[in-house]
């Protein structure tokens, strides 16, 4: 067979040259079509079909039929080929660089609370152009479904996150990628989009289908256009917030049905049916092996996100490419599940070990944060690695042990990598996060209340400005005149306030303000609100659970202790390169507060029927008496004699005396 093939391709080789000649002569270049026609015409297909239908009476069943294609005769095949290149061969080593690139990485950071923070980042870079209207339709590493969404809806930037649990900043420090509980979606559209709201509506519906989430519940009542808090993260010259839409669904519950479509977007990430798993090779590779849903959701915090944005390829930004960043962060509470033993391994966390890198990835690395453990007095890392790397992340220079999965030596003799961290001491102090926020609802009763937002600046001597974004649903009617901002018991006047009042059942409140936080202080923002009465169809199925109000967003440039890295194109670990850094002295931080759960006055839902019945009865009673008054005729009745008189009359009659 092989010999035949080689012979065949050799014939093709010779005839390809011929074909060039034919092409230049203006002859017919393609004859494949008629091959196909001939194939269809061949009587064998017809008989095949007839046989199959005879065998399977249910015609509706999916039938598989042999495609009959006659082997093209050599000269035709030669004419088929337009280019003279070898049709099927081993490619010489000088393969043209593919236009897309895939990287994967896992960062593990032991937290001082005893938990462990694992953050996956998968990045696909694709040098293509969605912007200038030319249709992009051939996908390799970039997932087709997202590519189609970007080009159809003219999306410039898309950020979507699904989070279960709340990130405890004070115990865990800053996350690499912050996300609010529930679902969050923010999108910058290209300036060619005319009907942004319509496009947004369609986009949310499509994304809802792609990610199996209830994003279709995003409508005008929970969408805002922040003016300053959400700037594009990729290259852009557009900052007109008309093209920005931001929405959160704090109620959204994230589970495996959201993880599966997210995993499908990874080139190495999908596992097909379990029962087809072939013994010789596994169907996943690289870090995606660890993404096992039963373990990932058995955690205190789970956040998965997809970020798409255009980025620069080089320092001068001559070429641009699209970046798809898929991130997944988990905080495992292994202390409680590990019977009090502080010992963690990849296998314990994910119930898998690493055996190889994704063959499509240009880099595949595991980073372990060992900054707090320079001499190994805190914990012990097995196997040890000589590779160390330093990265400036979130205003701090941190040291990481690096395991490069593309190197075979990483896996050692057992051909599998099971990282083990064994704690030695429980002491240790965490660097307190410089910025931190909290929020709660105060007040009693079901009529009014007060939202308190606390912003902590833990920096000992520097003050810095913070952008606070609050999006409150319309059924909490904010009394904006009661807005007070105090820090250190003094009034702190915001330098910028953008407030958009709500419209009932149309749009939410949007409050954005720029507040300067004095050093080492707590700034409190309070605003009173009144609870609105909803229509009875507007209540959720469990109205007594309460209504969620999405997290406030604090965005800030926090002064950095170490010089930040401003070169965005330099090769850096993925986790440190998400937020672009414009200056060396500060770094960008986004902090989400807790979502609020507010009780609204809830009616008794059987009430409408009761009310109808009661009202009808009252009306009927009133109507009945009125009707009687109007229609009955009244007449004077002869006063009837009393019983005593009647008896007396009878006696008198018997006596013959005239009655009374």
């Amino acid at each position: 067979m092989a010999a035949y093939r080689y012979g065949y391709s050799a014939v093709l080789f010779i005839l390809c040259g011929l074909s060039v000649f034919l092409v230049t002569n203006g002859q017919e270049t393609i004859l494949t079509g008629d091959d196909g026609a001939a194939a269809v015409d061949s009587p064998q297909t017809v008989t095949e079909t007839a046989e199959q239908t005879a065998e399977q009476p249910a015609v509706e069943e999916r039938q598989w039929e042999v495609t009959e294609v006659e082997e093209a005769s050599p000269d035709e095949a030669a004419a088929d080929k337009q280019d003279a290149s070898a049709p099927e061969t081993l490619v010489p080593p000088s393969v043209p660089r593919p236009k897309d690139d895939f990287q994967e990485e896992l960062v593990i950071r032991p937290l001082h609370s005893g938990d462990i923070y694992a953050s996956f980042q998968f990045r696909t870079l694709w040098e293509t152009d969605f912007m200038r209207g030319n249709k992009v339709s051939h996908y390799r590493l970039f997932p087709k479904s997202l590519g189609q969404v970007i080009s159809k809806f003219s999306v410039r930037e898309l950020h979507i996150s699904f989070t279960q649990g709340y990130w405890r900043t004070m115990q865990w420090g800053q996350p690499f990628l912050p996300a609010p509980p529930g679902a969050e979606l923010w999108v910058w559209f290209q300036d060619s989009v005319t009907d942004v709201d319509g496009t947004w509506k369609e986009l949310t519906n499509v994304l809802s289908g792609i990610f199996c989430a209830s994003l279709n519940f995003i409508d005008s009542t929970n969408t805002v256009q922040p003016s300053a808090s959400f700037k594009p993260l990729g290259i852009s010259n557009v900052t007109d917030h008309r093209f920005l839409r931001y929405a959160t669904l704090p109620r959204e519950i994230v589970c495996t049905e959201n993880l599966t479509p997210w995993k499908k977007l990874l080139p190495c990430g999908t596992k097909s049916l379990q029962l087809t798993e072939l013994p010789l090779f596994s169907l996943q590779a690289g870090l995606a092996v660890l993404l096992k849903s039963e373990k990932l959701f058995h955690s205190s915090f789970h956040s998965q996100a997809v970020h798409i944005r255009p980025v620069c390829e080089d320092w001068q930004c001559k070429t641009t490419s699209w970046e798809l960043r898929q991130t997944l962060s988990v905080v495992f509470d292994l202390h409680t599940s590990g019977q009090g033993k502080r010992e963690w391994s990849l296998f314990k966390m994910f119930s898998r070990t690493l055996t190889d890198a994704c063959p499509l990835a240009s880099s595949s690395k595991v980073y372990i944060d060992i900054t707090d453990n320079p001499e190994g007095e805190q914990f012990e890392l097995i196997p040890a690695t000589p590779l160390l790397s330093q990265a400036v992340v979130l205003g701090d220079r941190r040291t990481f042990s690096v395991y490069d999965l593309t190197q075979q030596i990483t896996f050692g003799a057992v051909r599998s990598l099971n990282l083990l961290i064994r704690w030695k001491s429980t002491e240790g102090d965490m660097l307190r996060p410089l910025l931190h926020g909290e929020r709660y609802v105060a007040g009693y009763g079901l009529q009014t209340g007060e939202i308190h937002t606390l912003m902590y600046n833990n920096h000992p001597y520097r003050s810095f400005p913070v952008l606070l974004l609050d999006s409150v649903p319309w059924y909490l009617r904010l009394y904006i005149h009661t807005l007070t901002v105090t820090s250190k018991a003094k009034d702190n006047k915001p330098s910028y306030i953008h407030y958009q009042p709500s419209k009932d059942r149309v749009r939410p409140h949007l409050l954005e303000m720029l507040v300067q936080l004095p050093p080492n202080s707590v700034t409190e923002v309070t605003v009173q609100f009144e609870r609105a009465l909803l229509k009875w169809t507007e209540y959720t199925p469990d109205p007594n659970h309460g209504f969620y109000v999405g997290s406030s967003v604090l965005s800030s440039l926090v002064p950095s202790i170490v010089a930040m890295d401003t070169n965005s194109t330099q090769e850096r670990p993925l986790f440190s390169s998400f937020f672009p850094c414009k200056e060396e002295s500060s770094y960008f931080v986004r902090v989400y507060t807790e979502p609020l759960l507010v009780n609204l006055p809830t009616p008794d839902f059987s009430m409408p029927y009761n009310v109808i019945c009661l009202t009808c009865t009252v009306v009927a009673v009133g109507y009945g008496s009125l009707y009687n008054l109007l229609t009955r005729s009244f007449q004077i009745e002869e006063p009837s004699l009393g019983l005593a008189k009647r008896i007396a009359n009878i006696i008198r009659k018997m006596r013959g005396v005239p009655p009374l």
Partner: protein
Amino acid sequence: MQATTQMLIGSSVFACLSERRRGQLAALAIAAVVIIVGVPLWWRTTETYRAWLPVSQINELAKLQLQLSADVEVVFARGTLTPEQQKKVPLTQTQDEEHRVDEDTALRYRYETRYRTATIMEEDALNQPTAAEADLSLHTLSESPCGSLVVYVIPESSSLLRQDVDVYIGQRRTALLRIGSPMRVGRTLEQLLAHMEPRMKQVLQVMSFSNTDITAALSDRVRVSPGNKGSIADSMRAFKSSPGYEITFSLLNPDPKSHRLHWDIEGAVQTYIQPLLTKLAPVANFSIDSQTLYYAVLGVNPRFDSSRSAYTLNADSLAHVINPVEARLGSNAASSNPVLNFLLYVPDAHHSPLYINDRKKQEVPSNAFHSPRWGGIMVYNVNAFYGLDAVFPVDININMAKVMGVFLAQLRLLLGVQSSTPPPGFQVAACGSAGLADWELDRLMWSRSVENVATATTTITSLAQLLDQIGNIVINDNIAQQVSSAVTSLQLAVAELEAGNLGFALQYSKEAILASERAFFDPSLLHLLYFPDDQKFAIYIPLFLPMCVPILLSLLKIVSEARQKRREKQAKKD
């Protein structure tokens, strides 16, 4: 004393009478108010909005009388007619053919045939050395409109056709038909035409619509009798008519560790697929994309055949092959058109080579299969391109010509460009660079127009039926508008089919199908304001019962009193 008592009683009787009268009037007035104001008010406030629908026209459409007309021109070349026969041409004949599909659907085919003799230029064209060249030059002379055909009758002596070929069907809408010498065929033109008749019929069947095609296109409307299952299988294979299709080529690479595959899909699509789709543009819009899926495996473990030292997949197991892959193919997020999937599967290094066996346990030469209304899959073995000592991963260029040949054949099948086997003595020209001859496109357009009309009428009539049956559905103005536009387009499409304007007919039928689907799937129809009657009355009773019972009772009383009075009057008169 007595008198005053009498007077009192009298006045009280009088007062009583007037009082009663007033009471009766009041009862009547209240009843009148309830009936005149209350009932209409209740009716209006609880009524559902139902816009007017063209029900009578829809009912007319439910009885579908389709007439398809095709213009046929028969041109006699020099030497085919005797001089006296020539005198009778030009001549026009109309042939009608009626088919009753079922009680609601009838088909009528009309061929308007014009006979004329060839012009000098056409004669020149017919003197070209080969049939293909003659076809091309005839095409440049005059372009026949969509849906019509021209048959050139050439003498037996003509060298255009091979000896064993009687009919040549060109790439455009022309056919060459050879007849015997006029002496042998018959003296009169009628005899000649009668002689040509069977051949002509075959030509028309091949190049224009045939009854089986059209009946198959009506399968949506008509339950086809179990007798002609073969045609059902054919019609089931092709995709249903739709305004657009998404074509997705997927390269499945289950083993990226060993194989690094390169396919020039962009170039291949431009070279092989795009010409066909450009040609098919009047029928539907197509969009093409491609993707590469890694770690995608088939759902069946192939069996190792030691005699061939190859892995084999049996035809029976093919139905299960695709299921795990299909979950990853993904639907097109950006449109709701049907997707045609074409998968190129490169088996992993440990399971190569992989061959597909058909039901007779024979190896399929193309190594490809297709699934009706879904797409096709081709297995592409690459193990022959590297030896045992190859260093993995190996870079492999895929021969797109070979792949696209298979996919193109499958695409034609799935789009319904099906060519039945030509009768003996026919020669069909190769379809050239576009991959599709004009007459093939016409055939497709005929059946697509009929299919669209059938689908749209079914949709519209079932929608009308549904709306008629459930009185609680709100019919908004936009739905009524969609329905009316669908009905108008349908009528226009039927009329254009009758007039033989195929292009317009297809256009209108597409509009009809779009409008009817939009009306049928309008979300506002789902907001069914449906309350069961018992619940409705449970809510009404507390109000209606106490209000209506006194009114009814007093009305009854008034009526009975009036009757009694009349009886008394009668008695007095008597």
